[in-house]
């Protein structure tokens, strides 16, 4: 589904991603871990099309070249990014925001706008899925939300937009254990054989709830080790030092 080949990205002349390769198949969950500053969030932003980066390499989603597309077109193709720091849009209600998003994505796919009745029905269903307080849906997008509410709202939006590829950028940070469980439940329920999820996280904790098929370690702009969920446990125990020592000098064989 998602194929990344030799991806380089730099901002203001600083190279952050240095030839990253990754393949994610439909139905899979991949976790990307790694120390601070290794390029995890940059990877998420570059896939979504954030305009701050100079990018080279190949990123395709179901064969379509994403790097050629504007961010809203990538969203139309089914890319969703749950932001690490969700943005506030004062005065724009969540409902209105989502209605615009749902219908714009439908328009991209050549579909007519969704009937108001169907939209409301979906809204209620998905709201229940992430146990989002009804009051929050009518409030302005993320305005005055707590950290946990913002993250839950991201998963709610994801549920509404039903993406092919969801990237969760440190969605677990700032969540208490109950919120974590709710968010993870939401993600698990949305999982299907047709979509894929990339989870970017610092902690093994989230992976107790969302079990990944693969775990990758990102370091200095490249994936330096890949494995199964056991790798996450190992990292939790040993940290990253045993992997990162000497990476700069020696070529590490990376399977992905």
């Amino acid at each position: 589904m998602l194929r990344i080949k030799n991806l380089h990205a730099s901002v203001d002349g600083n190279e952050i991603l240095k030839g990253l390769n990754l393949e994610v198949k439909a139905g899979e969950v991949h976790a990307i871990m790694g120390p601070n500053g290794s390029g995890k969030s940059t990877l998420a932003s570059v896939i979504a099309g954030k305009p701050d980066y100079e990018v080279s390499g190949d990123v395709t989603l179901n064969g379509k070249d994403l790097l050629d597309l504007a961010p809203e077109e990538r969203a139309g193709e089914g890319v969703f990014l749950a932001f690490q720091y969700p943005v506030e849009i004062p005065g724009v209600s969540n409902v209105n925001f989502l209605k615009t998003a749902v219908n714009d994505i439908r328009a991209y796919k050549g579909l007519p706008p969704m009937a108001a009745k169907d939209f409301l029905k979906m809204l209620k269903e998905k709201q229940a899925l992430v146990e989002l307080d009804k009051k929050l849906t009518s409030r302005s997008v993320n305005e005055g939300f707590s950290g946990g509410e913002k993250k839950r709202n991201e998963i709610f939006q994801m549920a509404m937009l039903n993406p092919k590829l969801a990237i969760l950028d440190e969605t677990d940070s700032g969540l208490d254990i109950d919120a974590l469980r709710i968010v993870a439940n939401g993600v698990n329920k949305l999982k299907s054989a047709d979509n894929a999820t990339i989870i970017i996280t610092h902690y093994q904790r989230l992976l107790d709830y969302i079990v990944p098929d693969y775990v990758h370690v990102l370091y200095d702009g490249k994936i330096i080790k890949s494995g199964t969920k056991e790798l996450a446990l190992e990292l939790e125990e040993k940290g990253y030092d045993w992997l990162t020592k000497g990476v700069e000098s020696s070529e590490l064989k990376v399977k992905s």
Partner: protein
Amino acid sequence: MGKYTEDELEKELETQEYKYGFVTDIETEKAPIGLSEDIIRLISSKKNEPEWLLEYRLKAYSAWLKMEEPTWAHVNYPKVDFQDIYYYAAPKPKKQLDSLDEVDSELLEMYEKLGISIDEQKKLSNVAVDIVMDSVSVKTTFQDTLAKLGIIFGSFSEAVQKHPDLVKKYMGTIVPYTDNYYAALNAAVFTDGSFCYIPKGVRCPMELSTYFRINEAQTGQFERTLVVADKGSYCSYLEGCTAPQRDENQLHAAVVELIAMDDAEIKYSTVQNWYPGDKNGKGGIYNFVTKRGLCEKNAKISWTQVETGSAITWKYPSCILKGDNSVGEFYSVAVTNNYQQADTGTKMLHLGKNTKSTIISKGVSAGHSQNSYRGLVKISKNATNARNFSQCDSLLMGNKCGAHTFPYIEVDNKSAKVEHEATTSKIGEDQIFYCNQRGIDTESAIKLIVNGYAKDVLNKLPMEFAVEAQKLLAISLEGSVG
């Protein structure tokens, strides 16, 4: 890639075009160009006015001659040549109009282009419309329905003929002709406008609405509106304005007077999209308006304005809170683009005890425009326990425009509570990207964000016009991102 930059946004905003730029080919009857006592006499006689009104006009004219054009506003424009303006232009009707079917078909077509088909309005919405084209009120709908409640609503000239005593009693009491340069000019040469009287205890059951439109080239439009809400009454009034696209600047100097007697309430909403000039700043309306309301005991006046048009806007809808416990409100969204300049705000004059005022002003500046808020909150000696809350926000697009805030606060009573908040922000690239990531393109994202920003004010508009205002905001900032 659809990378969003301020430059692109600016380009996009420059290329927007004025949607209402067409000229209707209707024969008009014009007075000779220029201003003199003779012209004033001509206007007065054309309108078959009583002697006292002609005298009023002439007094105003001689006062105006001694006055000087104000220069304190944060706007720049070439001096207006008052002798190069037609002061009277009336569409020539073939005969007296009894029903809408008889209205000139070209006129009706124009209304349709403006999106205000009267038939539609009559059928669908509960709105009485008084249409002022250039200087004569063409047709008023719903007059009969209103008459049953004792409500007088129609053109100013008609009121002069039918209710001269009411007009004489109230006209010029809130905005005297000595008030300022443009008010004096208006008093001398005003041609028409709306008049509204709500009797004691009557709640007007529908929104009263007037559309103004300047059609004839080089004609000044000087409308005069007077709304009198008698004790315990209520009315909501909406004024909408458009002007066709022309190269010469056209002058618009209106006077609006509101009187809310004890326990009365007036809601006055304006949607203004006079022609703003082209993207190089050529042409456009000069809009110099004096709007003021008087609140007696427990009365309330609420001004709501959505200003997207005019090359120059000079406008300060104000409240004189004379009666104890009276309330004044001012809600404003002013959008300037290209080379538009707006200097707008309000004055809240607290005279009575326990008087309250709220000011919410939202400016949006784009292109090379200049957008200023200018407001005065004055708490006089006797205004015990007066309260004011002001919030002035500015939203900037690009880096060639300007937003300015000039708040004046004068407090002569220690018990007063006056709060002032101000913010200036830019539409954040992170907000745009967030919307993009959800599938919303940059143009729609800007509309969404601007409408959200202006929501507190748009919410104050009557329902049916809030939608129109939202569309107008979108049109004002329209274009496509490359």
